[in-house]
């Protein structure tokens, strides 16, 4: 115990859910101006702990003191009143209204959208965030939505800012900018709780770290002193394997050939794809880097067949597929892991067994017009086992799984289909460190066994780890591929960042706003 009052002090915080102790006697303290990391895998209890601090969940036991005063049972509204702000991992924005209207919901006093819009623009500019107050949230990408969430908190001038995995969807430059923002905030005396499983970031940013595993504190360390490896071992409880990238021989003819693909944007603020030309050969993993909202979703749906463009050339093993719907493409060996797991990659209210049929029908889970339930159950159970999906079994509903676990299930399902071509968007988003390295290895193995793999990801480290070649998709245009040996964070980051300068918001946009 220190003599001086710390900004936030937790003593023996315990939270039990049926069948699991999410937080087991957690004790930690954060001083004013300190950036404190909460490190841990998915399911370690990080998010629960943050919700307890924020007041969204009540602890069963233990005490929270904020600036020396015990908080007791409090609500998020009470927390915000005290200056505690939180950016959730899953965003809490209303999709059908504008950014400014969303932010206005958290503001006290009179509602003046125009003035608020100006404040949003100023704050965004100061911290280098790309946020246009007049955009409708529905039209924003995942990455852009997170920036709105962060900005919403910054406008409140918080004393304690809680960030739940904030960088998972940001480009490297944006991460650096965010870190600048956070350091500046800390310098002003704001305390920051930074939840992450990314060791490098924690080491670069944070003054102290509390490591959680299975709801318990497994270490209180200075992340700048500890190595990434030491931190990882504390988190996972065992050693981590590196992805093995065996030498490969790629096929002479590409499995996927895309030539001059153009597509209209989704939503009024989507990105138009222009003139995409791309080859993926059997035996290689090709990456597409870039911040989402730059044509990533448009490219993925054009390839999966959810959007059809008969005019562009898309070939799978030499056969034209540009005019074929998704089921026909799947029967030809295409598998696809979409960015959204719930509602697109899986039916939320269906069991995992039923969700196996969703794409497994191409591999005999539906036969002669009938659903093969026994086979589907076996398939689901095998996937749950092989990808260590934490769930009650094949009968569990998809929406009862955590995001990372559902992602593992969907990835496992698509990989088990033994595709000729796998397209995966954000394959390890929200998946914990141990499982992510396992999944990456599986993806590499798939390519080494003769499949073509295309990974669309915002995480450069991931792409650098598993890709043989990396393109950058920015502003709807695809850069030339950079081969594995030559690709570096800096080189790719420049491509991504160079293009972000042309993002709307800095150009003609304000005239739109004025008209409103």
């Amino acid at each position, binding site marked *: 115990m220190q003599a001086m009052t710390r900004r936030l002090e937790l003593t023996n915080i315990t939270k039990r859910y049926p069948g699991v102790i999410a937080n087991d006697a957690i004790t930690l303290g954060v001083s004013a101006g300190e950036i404190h990391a909460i490190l841990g895998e998915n399911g370690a209890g990080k998010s629960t702990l943050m919700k307890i601090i924020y007041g969204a969940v*009540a602890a069963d036991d233990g005490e929270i003191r904020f600036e020396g005063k015990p*908080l*007791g*049972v*409090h*609500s998020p509204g*009470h927390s915000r009143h005290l200056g505690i702000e939180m950016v959730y991992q899953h965003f809490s924005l209303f999709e059908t209204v504008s950014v400014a209207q969303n932010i206005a919901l958290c503001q006290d006093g009179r509602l003046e959208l125009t003035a608020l819009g100006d404040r949003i623009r100023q704050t965004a500019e100061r911290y280098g965030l790309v946020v246009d107050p007049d955009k409708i949230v529905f039209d924003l990408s995942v990455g852009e939505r997170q920036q709105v969430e962060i900005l919403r908190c910054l406008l409140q001038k918080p004393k304690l800012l809680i960030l739940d995995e904030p960088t998972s969807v940001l480009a490297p430059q944006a991460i650096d900018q965010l870190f600048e923002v956070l350091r500046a905030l800390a310098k002003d005396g704001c305390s920051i709780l930074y939840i992450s499983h990314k060791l490098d970031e924690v080491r670069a940013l944070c003054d102290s770290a509390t490591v959680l595993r299975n709801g318990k504190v497994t270490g209180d360390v200075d992340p700048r002193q500890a190595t990434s490896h030491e931190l990882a071992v504390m988190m996972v409880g065992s050693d981590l394997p590196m992805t093995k990238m065996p030498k490969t021989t790629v096929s002479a003819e590409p499995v996927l050939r895309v030539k001059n693909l153009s597509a209209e944007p989704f939503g009024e603020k989507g990105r138009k794809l222009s003139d995409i030309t791309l080859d993926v050969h059997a035996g290689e993993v090709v990456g597409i880097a870039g911040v989402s909202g730059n044509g990533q979703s448009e490219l993925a749906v054009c390839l*999966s*067949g*959810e959007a059809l463009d008969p005019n562009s050339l898309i070939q799978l093993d030499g056969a034209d597929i540009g005019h074929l*719907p*998704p*089921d*026909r*493409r*799947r029967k030809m060996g295409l598998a*696809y892991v*979409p960015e*959204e797991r719930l*509602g*697109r*990659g*899986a*039916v*939320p*209210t*269906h069991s995992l067994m*039923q969700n196996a*049929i*969703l*794409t497994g*029908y191409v591999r005999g889970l*539906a036969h002669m*017009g*009938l*659903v093969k339930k026994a086979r589907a159950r076996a398939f689901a159970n095998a996937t749950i086992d092989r990808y260590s999906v934490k769930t009650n079994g094949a009968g569990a509903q998809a929406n009862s799984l955590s995001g990372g676990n559902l992602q593992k299930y969907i990835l496992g399902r698509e990989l088990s289909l033994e595709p000729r071509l796998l397209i995966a968007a954000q394959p390890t988003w929200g998946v914990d460190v141990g499982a992510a390295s396992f999944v990456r290895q599986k993806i590499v193995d798939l390519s080494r066994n003769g499949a073509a793999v295309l990974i669309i990801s915002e995480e450069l480290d991931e792409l650098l780890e598993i890709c043989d070649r990396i393109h950058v998709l920015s502003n709807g245009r695809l850069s030339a591929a950079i081969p594995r040996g030559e690709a570096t964070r800096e080189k790719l980051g420049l491509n991504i960042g160079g293009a972000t300068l042309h993002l709307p918001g800095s150009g003609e946009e304000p005239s739109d706003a004025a008209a409103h």
Partner: protein
Amino acid sequence: MQLRIEPRVTTSIVIQGLAPIIAVTMTLVLGGILFAAMGYPPLETLWAFFIEPISTIYGASELLVKAVPLVIIATGLAIGFRANIWNIGAEGQLTIGAIAATGIGLYFPDQQAVYLLALMFLAGCLGGLFWAGIAAYLRARFHTSEILVTLMLTYIAALILSWLVRGPWRDPAGFNFPQTALLPPAGLIDPIDFAYRVTGSVYFAIFALIAMWFFVARSFQGYKLAVGGAAPRAARYAGFSEKSAIWIGLLTGGAAAGIAGFFEVAGPLGQLSPIISPGYGFAAIIVAFIGRLHPVGILLGGLFLALIYLGGESVQLGYGIPAPITRVFQGLLLFFLLASEFAVSHRIVRVKEAH
């Protein structure tokens, strides 16, 4: 202390099954209060409404007569409802089915043909398919709301029927009554026993329930519809055609309603008149929902709704209570059903204040 409504994390199957039973109980309780308020002895009237009508074998057979069309239509509608396809116009599809079947029955050249009933069955089915198909085409082609189209087509169907029985199809020997001639003997379904009005349509209703169970639980097409209903974007991701879901969802309801129309006209009615259904097509929507879109539930729901029809007639005869009481009970039932569904999937929690 504040209260807040939030979705339940888990709902037990027992509670889910209990919801319709609670709804029925609440309907009875409020119905009793209603009778009391109207000045009738509540328990006695409820007895006359719900027990007396089925206390005889004839009464029970009448229950089946009314339950059969409800069950047949509800099975067809439930398949569409599972896919979020809202066919509200089964009443119109029933009407067109009945018209088509009667047309064949009255005007087919060979009035003694043994296959006349089979042809009428087919005509009824096609009539319902056609009427629902209009809505399906408009929805698939122009994204027109099938709710509005099917509902409006119901009124058109009723006017066509009205015109036919007063105009070209009016029975010349019918003393100017607005009705068609009686169907020829070969075009009528004999009752199973001549003491009652129940026909072989009962067997068809059972067949429809089994077919629906098979379609929903075992077929790939049924699975695709369920995915489309629960998560449209997942259906698109998997490559399940939305258009075929629209067509199948509407056509099954249309075919079922058309067949029910055939069974009505070739069974208990024997001819067309301006009103051929006491709202079976609308009541079947309630049946589908009270049955939780499940075959067993639809069977029970169909019997219960049929009982409400019988009870309405019974208290009208016995106590002079106006006939619209039937619809009041239907409305109460639907209301309590939706309310209990909500209570099952949500809960009210007390929000603790900060100390």
